[in-house]
């Protein structure tokens, strides 16, 4: 039988984690953990890894506004994010939340679980990269923060130490009026893994871009920011932004061919989606 524990305090959870003879698999909403189990079971590869269920840890709950940042607890679901009253710079993240899976997955899956699962197609990553988010990690020795770009190391690899639990995402505040957008491309309406997704957060003063942050997912093992494009955008009038993205700005990407699309298509659509995301709302896609 699989060992399964559901501690009720972070301290207890960290102790269980530190003392476990075999590193347990951490469990939040289970929307990645259970499907992975089913995939194994179908080919007679049952998982006997112990589970440490984090869902009863009060320290991981809720969204909190603090002086210079918001803290999104590790148990906050996509649905909670989608429905939360959050400042405008969260719009891209909330648009992503509304497009993850279907309603059932949104009701159960967590944002932090999405980050920890570290899929190249994780919809939560680009928006948070564009917000310079950090991941809060708790261990028996204390709590540390890791920038998201340093947290996700590769396909299904993170910088979490085996005895740590990700407790929250820290999102620094942006300037009021910042515009954030998310564009997801998939081959059907719901329940679809992204072929490409783009998140942008643009902050402007007097109609000129003061800071642009742009990230692209599903086009490299880890979603990437596009620093050259961000630099090129800085100082431009907001209306000029959509015309700026060029193929050379995509240098950090390394898309592949897979069942969903070709590498060439991903490069092409990344540019299209970038231009759309950067275009002023009035020019948004004609129906």
């Amino acid at each position, binding site marked *: *039988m*699989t*060992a*399964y*524990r*559901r501690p009720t305090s972070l301290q207890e959870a960290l102790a269980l984690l530190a003392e476990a003879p075999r590193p347990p698999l951490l*469990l939040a*909403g*289970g*929307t990645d953990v*259970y*499907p992975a189990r*089913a*995939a194994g*079971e*179908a*080919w*007679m*590869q*049952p998982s*006997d890894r112990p*589970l440490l*269920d984090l*869902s009863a840890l009060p320290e991981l709950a809720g969204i909190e506004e603090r002086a210079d940042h918001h803290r999104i607890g590790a148990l906050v679901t996509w*649905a909670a994010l989608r429905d939360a009253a959050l400042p405008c710079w969260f719009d891209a993240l909330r648009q992503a939340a509304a497009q993850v*899976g*279907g*309603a*059932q*997955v949104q*009701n*159960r899956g967590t944002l932090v679980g999405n980050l920890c699962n570290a899929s190249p197609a994780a919809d939560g990553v680009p928006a948070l990269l564009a917000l310079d988010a950090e991941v809060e990690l708790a261990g028996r020795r204390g709590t540390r923060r890791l920038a998201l770009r340093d947290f996700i190391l590769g396909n299904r690899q993170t910088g979490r130490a085996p005895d740590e639990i990700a407790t929250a995402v820290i999102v620094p505040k942006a300037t009021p009026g910042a515009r954030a957008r998310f564009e997801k*491309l998939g*081959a*059907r*309406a*719901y*329940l*679809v*893994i992204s*072929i490409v997704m783009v998140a942008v957060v643009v902050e402007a003063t007097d109609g000129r871009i003061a800071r642009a942050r742009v990230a692209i997912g599903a086009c490299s093992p880890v979603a990437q920011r596009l620093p050259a494009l961000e630099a090129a955008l800085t100082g431009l009038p907001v209306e000029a932004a959509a015309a700026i993205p060029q193929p050379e700005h995509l240098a950090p990407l390394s898309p592949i061919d897979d*069942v*969903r*699309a*070709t590498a*060439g*298509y991903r490069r*092409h*659509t990344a540019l*299209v*989606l970038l231009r759309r995301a950067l275009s002023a709302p009035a020019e948004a*896609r*004609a*129906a």
Partner: protein
Amino acid sequence: MTAQATLLSVNGTARAVTAPGETRLTSVLRDALGLTGTKVGCDAGDCGACTVLLDGVQVCACLVPLAQAEGRSVTTVEGLAATAMGAALQRAFLHHGAAQCGICTPGMLMAATELLAANPRPTEAEAMASLGGVLCRCTGYRKILEAVLAAHGFLEDGRPPIMPAAGCAVGSRMPRADGLAKVTGADRFGADAAPAGSLWLRAVRSPYPRARFAFGDWAPLLARHPGLIRVLTAADIPGRNGFGIYPDIKDQPVFCEREARYRGDCLCALVSDRATLDAIRFDELPITWEVLEPVTLDGAPGGEALHARWPDNVLTTGRVVSGDAEAALSASVHVAAIGIETSFVEHAYIEPEAGWARRIGQRVEVFACTQAPYMDLEEVAGVLGIPQAAVRIIPSACGGGFGGKLDVSIQPMLAVAAWLLDRPVRAVLPRSESMVSSTKRHPARITARAGCDATGRLTGFAFEGLYDTGAYASWGPTVAGRVPVHAMGPYRVPAVASRARAILTSNPPSGAFRGFGVPQAAIAQEALWDRLADSVGLDRLEFRALNALRAGDTTATGQVLEHSVGLVACLDALRPRWQALRAEAAAANARGGVRRHGVGIACMWYGIGNTGMSNPSTMRVTLGPDGLVFHNGAVDIGQGSTTVLLQIAADALGLPAGGFRLVLGDTDLTADAGKTSASRQTFVSGRAAAAAGKALRDAVLLRANAGPEAKLAWDGSELLVDGRPLALEAPLEGIGRFDPPTVPLDANGQGIPYATYGFAAQVAALSVDMELGTVHLRRIVAAHDVGRAINPTLVEGQIHGGIAQGIGLALMEEYLPGRTENLHDYLIPTVGDVPEIECILVEEREPLGPFGAKGIGEPALVPTAPAIFSAIRDATGATIMRIPALPHRVLDAIGR
């Protein structure tokens, strides 16, 4: 660590469950609490069949650990009727025909219930967002949306639905006769029931597409897992280790001997209790492998032989030759040519294969989901080496089939296990195992050419189709036989040369899938008409109308179509919509933007029943001590035959449909109605049902000494003839049998392959994002000549469902062995992918059919993909040649 009891509230009742905390809530509900209304289609969050409410919020129960439900309230379909809105929603589902097979219905109901609790009058967009996580493979979602939006209107009306009066059933929108069990969760699907104490069976399958293998010593495995009762291999098969559709082709082994021929081929099976099976790992099994190079469609024809019996790997060649097509083409004023390639398509019924078998003395009983109980009976008897009379097949409710449950899957191995162990044995395939092991739609490589004269009249047509039939024969010969007959479509073509070959490869066996290869052919054929129409300068609809078959025409097989050729009527009905949609598209294009709008059209014909082969059906209606009973052996896989055949029998007899008791499917209790495929049950079994009803009526009238106009009435226990009770000393029965008249095809495909044909034309309106290659469907209008719509709601349901599958075929479905073996990566349309559909029912009566009816199951799917490609061409000028038209392929085609 022993598990403690977890307390939770289920449908308002406190329950204590003793199971490990990580146990899936689905398993808790179904196995521990017996609430099998919650269905399991994937165990992975992908299908939503397991949707329940957790504290009022919809969740996939397969992803919820029991411990996380502790102290919370769970609502399942079994608890739905307790609330006013839940009961109203169930009534709305029945009224609108929102449940077909019913396997997705509990999940749909629960997802909708979350929404309706907060918002009793939602918009369509809100309903879509709520239902986006539940897949339905049958309905095309439109009637589900209708029901959800209308549910509030059913709040007041608590009465059961109104049933048609005597003689008025045919043509009425009577609710499904088997519908109540589907909306309450009471229906018993393959995984929902098993005899107490059943053992579990697990098939062991090849992960390699082609490999030789040998078993070593099983003793260590048996020692390590003391619960493991038996390992079954080829050596244990008491009878013939082979099954297959054709009596002379039993080429697919129950358990492979030395060689596995596709990824998913079955090597052996393990039998034990569930926990033991779940713990056994593949790498513990004593199997050694010699992996061989797989043979694909590229290398198969004339390459290394995969079966000694077919040295060139050509399983079957079908052809139709009439006139001199080459000469006609070279003399044509306009000629068009096309080459297309399609993919494997998975049936993706939401219910994976499941069932049980048990031995009773010298007989065996098999309960499983199936489309063909009598074929299962023959296979089981053959594999066990026992007389057919010793086998009883009890079909479970069937959670979708679409052709995929015509072949046996688990039935033979369950029967072998139960027979040898003399204990009941059950099995439920996990989703991925279902996908790797079951048959697929044939991928096809098609080249076709057609010509016409200066006025647009067709002159000649040449068609060459290479169909990848995979590792075993299955329905390959049927596909190769049906395709050349249909390849030119429902048009007058004086000279035809069409050939289809089914080629054996190391791929999954391709079998029967709604349309038997015809949908692939229609894609090529309809693309040619668009090109010829453009060359001639004719409107694309008018080009088709000009060439459409009409009553009195002779087909390429030499058959004269005497009656019921409704294609022109379909096109006439579509014409105003076509023109209006084209005008709308032109106006939208004139406004500019990244999306280009287009409208496409396609036609189809479809022969009802087997190709040039006998396919009889027998139906029986009895009147006796157990009442008025309709013995109907046709399995309803969601398409509605239980209801339609009842409507027919009732009207033929002259009693209300509501008065019958139904005995369905069971081979001990019903006669052979033939398989549920080839769109034949309404036509063939319908005629048998009409004859049975009529025969019983005749017997009653004779007994009562009454004239033919006598009025019958049934009060549930007594039959009244013109108001006078009929005294019965012995039960009366009426038996009806029908076998559609056909003439087998000769070497050139000449003959009468089908007694009647369905005809249809569909128009698709869409837009294409010219930068992304994404396709947005706006509207589909479908005109179908069904002879007579016995039940318009069910006919529309078939059309909607067929269209949804056509959309999947056209735009997203591509089964790649080893890569898209689950419902996460293999995409089928969701509620947001099916646009508004308008159905136009054309009723050109078929004199042979019951009350003039033909069939609709497959015709619904055939024209959809070609109409979509026609519309993409209209919008962008691009011809899609690699199917499905995933966004990158559309963009590629636009760029060419």
